């Protein structure tokens, strides 16, 4: 006969305020099989857990029910406590009478009745729980890092230094991400190339890191510890083994007017190009859309339209026939570090629900640029070799107006969050501008300056006090070209007067959004994402670098707008988590997996068709003399993730998902009757 112990938690007054915990404990105590039913103020506290251990020992409990918060919060805590007292952890379940009851109802009597029902449901379930042992499966001690920005680089280096093999996949021809485009970085103003390039080289030379640049993740199968990742190696048209990065091909290339993505379309590049001088790997890529040879092929010309780069290459590294190749890697964990991209200000928007700023003239007025474009103008490796010249006529702008919060904090445009880093980099821009153009006037239109990091506020104060940036609190309503001047109409809310500035250049600090295509990658990894496309972390406070999918971790701006210091810290945290996962030989997995009863299985194999993980195998049933009786389904406990679709599809219910067996669910539904 079951001996169930029920512990009703007040959770301070989170539950106690609207649920009469004593009455719950009393009513549940009357249920057949319940031998111990108490309520306590803080069950998850040490004394609370001690109550459980004591009751298990004294009353020989065969099952524990903790009616408190959501299992997502403390199921692990209470199971560990029960395990500590010698009770199989899977004989301990939680009834959610906080998030699903006390917090969402005011009427005390109705909330208490509901709490009693919810507790009774779980008591009846626990009576049918069976002791389960955790499953041990081997772990592939290799990690996949998706995204070669600063976060990806940091995670890869930490993992490799921690002894794990790393596969770093980067979509662009070179790693470095957006950080490589920056001139100087706040708050220390040290040049981004100087602090980033050594890290990139370290990645390139690290024996345990396999760098796969110009590659994309195509498909991911398997589960924590045993992922099988298919990676598409996009054709560079350059043989990596032969090329030594001498750059002769780029000099020889006839196509020289392709707008450079790296320089945010302010500079030009050749058809065969290396994004920037310090690129890692320093191997060029042929842009087949603009390359004369490939355009000729596209038009069906038999003769080679061009082959200058091939001729110029002393080592014969150019290979026009190269095709995309697929590589599969077995990895134990995945770190998503795909970073961000800037909100596109113009009329057409990538995602529904987003709107552009036609009134700021971005795209029609050449001297209205965004933050990254300003970085490229200020950067020594930029199109203007570091001299701040305005794109329209190349003159030095005497007056620059900076607009904060373009896109961010603007629900009407579809983005209601703050992008966190713009206040800092706009202050930085004003400083860079004054350092390069001593008599330049920088005006910044802002709503609130948010500079909360270490040394951040001092940095923005310096921009105002030492470098004379004029901060105007207010929004700009329109930017338009008036002759060769860029007219900025704004409003100063502090002294209540409209402001009109004849600027030479306007820089828009646009919102940070996740990379295009993040939704598809998230679905490939079966990881959830929020309505903006940022990856959902497992828990904002307690598990910020994990996702709800075991074995998939997240770092950097792909999870939320984030600056470099935070991204690096998060990358190291993710690496630490992965190293923790790899630290033990076998991975312990929840034993809530499916089991087939060979006697009852008719071998129709519906279960095999619905299993997303291919965990169902065929097993022959033979009699003692060895002749075949029938072929039945069999579940591989290592592969099964416990979704239970097989059981719901099986007509004869011959397969049972441990932890959610038919007996348990029937008991739960039956317990709901009055």
């Amino acid at each position, binding site marked *: 006969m079951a001996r169930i112990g029920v512990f009703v938690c007040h959770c301070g007054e989170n539950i106690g305020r609207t649920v009469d915990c004593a009455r719950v404990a009393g009513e549940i105590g009357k249920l057949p099989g319940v031998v111990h039913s108490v309520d306590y103020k803080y069950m998850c506290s040490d004394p609370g857990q001690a109550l459980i251990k004591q009751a298990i020992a004294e009353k020989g409990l065969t099952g524990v029910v903790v009616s408190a918060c959501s299992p997502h919060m403390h199921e692990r805590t209470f199971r560990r406590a029960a395990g500590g007292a010698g009770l199989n952890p899977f004989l301990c379940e939680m009834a959610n009478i906080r998030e699903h009851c006390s917090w969402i109802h005011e009427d005390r009597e109705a909330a208490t009745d509901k709490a009693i029902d919810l507790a009774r449901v779980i008591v009846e379930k626990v009576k049918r729980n069976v002791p389960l042992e955790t499953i041990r499966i081997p772990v592939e001690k290799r990690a996949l890092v998706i995204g070669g920005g600063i976060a990806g680089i940091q995670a890869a280096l930490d993992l490799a230094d921690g002894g794990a093999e790393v596969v770093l996949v980067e979509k662009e021809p070179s790693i470095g991400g957006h950080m490589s485009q920056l001139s100087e970085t706040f708050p220390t103003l040290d040049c981004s190339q100087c602090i980033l390039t050594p890290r990139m080289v370290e990645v390139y030379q690290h024996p345990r890191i396999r760098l796969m640049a110009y590659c994309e993740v195509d498909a991911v199968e398997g589960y924590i510890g045993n992922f099988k990742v298919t990676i598409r190696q996009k054709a560079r048209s350059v043989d990596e083994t032969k090329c030594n990065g001498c750059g002769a091909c780029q000099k020889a290339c006839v196509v020289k007017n392709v707008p450079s993505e790296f320089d945010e379309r302010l500079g030009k590049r050749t058809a065969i190009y290396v994004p920037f001088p310090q690129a890692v790997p320093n191997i060029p890529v042929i842009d087949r859309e603009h390359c004369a040879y490939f355009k000729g092929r596209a038009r069906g010309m038999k003769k080679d339209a061009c082959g200058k780069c091939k001729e110029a290459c002393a080592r014969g590294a150019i290979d026009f026939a190269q095709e995309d190749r697929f590589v599969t890697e077995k990895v134990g964990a995945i770190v998503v570090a795909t970073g961000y991209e800037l909100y596109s200000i113009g009329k057409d928007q990538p995602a529904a629900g987003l709107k552009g700023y036609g009134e700021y003239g971005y795209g029609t007025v050449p001297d209205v640029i965004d933050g990254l474009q300003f970085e490229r103008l200020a950067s020594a490796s930029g199109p203007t070799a570091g001299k701040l010249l305005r794109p329209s006529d190349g003159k030095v702008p005497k007056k620059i107006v900076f607009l904060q919060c373009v896109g961010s904090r603007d629900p009407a445009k579809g983005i209601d969050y703050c992008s966190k880093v713009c206040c800092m980099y706009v202050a930085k821009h004003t400083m860079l501008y004054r350092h390069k153009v001593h008599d330049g006037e920088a005006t910044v239109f802002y709503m609130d300056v948010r500079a909360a990091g270490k040394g951040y506020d001092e940095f923005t104060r310096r921009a105002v006090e030492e470098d004379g940036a004029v901060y105007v609190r207010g929004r700009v309503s329109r930017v338009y070209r008036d002759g060769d001047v860029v007219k900025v109409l704004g409003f100063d809310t502090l002294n209540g007067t409209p402001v009109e500035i004849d600027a030479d250049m306007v820089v828009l600090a646009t919102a940070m959004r996740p990379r295009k295509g993040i939704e598809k990658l998230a679905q490939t990894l079966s990881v959830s994402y929020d309505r903006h496309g940022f990856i959902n972390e497992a828990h904002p406070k307690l598990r910020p670098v994990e996702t709800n999918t075991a074995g998939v971790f997240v770092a950097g701006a792909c999870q939320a707008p984030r600056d470099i210091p935070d991204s690096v810290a998060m990358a190291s945290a993710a690496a630490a988590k992965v190293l923790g996962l790899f630290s033990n030989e076998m991975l312990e997995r929840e034993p809530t997996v499916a089991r087939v009863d060979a006697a009852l*299985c008719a071998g129709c194999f519906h*279960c095999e068709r619905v299993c997303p993980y291919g965990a169902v195998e065929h097993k022959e049933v033979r009699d003692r003399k060895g002749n075949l009786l029938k072929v039945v389904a069999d579940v591989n406990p290592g592969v099964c993730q416990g979704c239970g679709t097989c059981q719901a*599809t099986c*007509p*004869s219910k*011959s397969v049972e998902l441990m932890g959610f067996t*038919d007996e348990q669910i029937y008991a739960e539904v039956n317990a709901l009757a009055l």
Partner: protein
Amino acid sequence: MKELRDLATKLLAEGTVNVVLGWEEGPRGVRPAFATDAAAAGRLVFDPRCTQNLVPYLSPRRTQVKKLGKAAVVVKGCDARAVAGLVRETQLAREDVVVIGVRCGGVIADPASPEPLSPATVADRCPGCNSREPKLADHTVGELPAAPPGESRRDVRIADLEARTADERWAFWQDELGRCVRCHACREACPMCFCERCVADKTQPQWVDSSPHPRGAFAWNVTRALHLAGRCVDCGECERACPVDIPLGLLNLKLARVASERFGYTATDDPAVPSPVGSFQKDDAQEFIL
């Protein structure tokens, strides 16, 4: 008829098969025959009284029929779909059975009835039949007779039921299912119900009450219809087997329509066509989901 008998005798004589499943004259009209010798093969018949689907006898659960050795089975177009169903769900290897297709012009509802085939006596499923010559067959016998007579009564009955209000439909079905005595003849006569132990017989937990009260009858008939959704071959055996004449075919036909309208699957005797059970399309309609 003679062509069928000669073929059966030849197959038995050659040893290609050990038993030929067909129909023979019985005390009440025709009945299934398990011809294991020339004499029995000589008694095989085929006429509009051969309503019964013989494929259930090929299910792995029928150990006695299995003991008779390799079988040949005489199938009409609807029966052939049942063979495809068993092959599709690995209950029967296609090469383990010799299928003798017979061209059919429709059968009468009650095999014991002396009445000839007519719009009044024709089985509900036959009018408008599109598989009068079974494709899944190793041999095909008989000339192609005229199309089955009469109109399909069940389309009208379904339309009439769908036109009623929910409460009227509930009352109609509670009354019909109220007669169910849970003998499960509908399950035992169905070629596609081959489970080793049916969920209705599972007692821990007893998902489907075994009692024939309205609650148990409702749960059973919902479960049976759902388990045949996208699998039913429309052979009419369940409705014919029901001792209390519950119009079970209407439930199966309703779900067969859902399978074709929503998921583009119609019952077919081609085992290569996958059943919609256990598969999905990313863009399946979900207008009923908020």
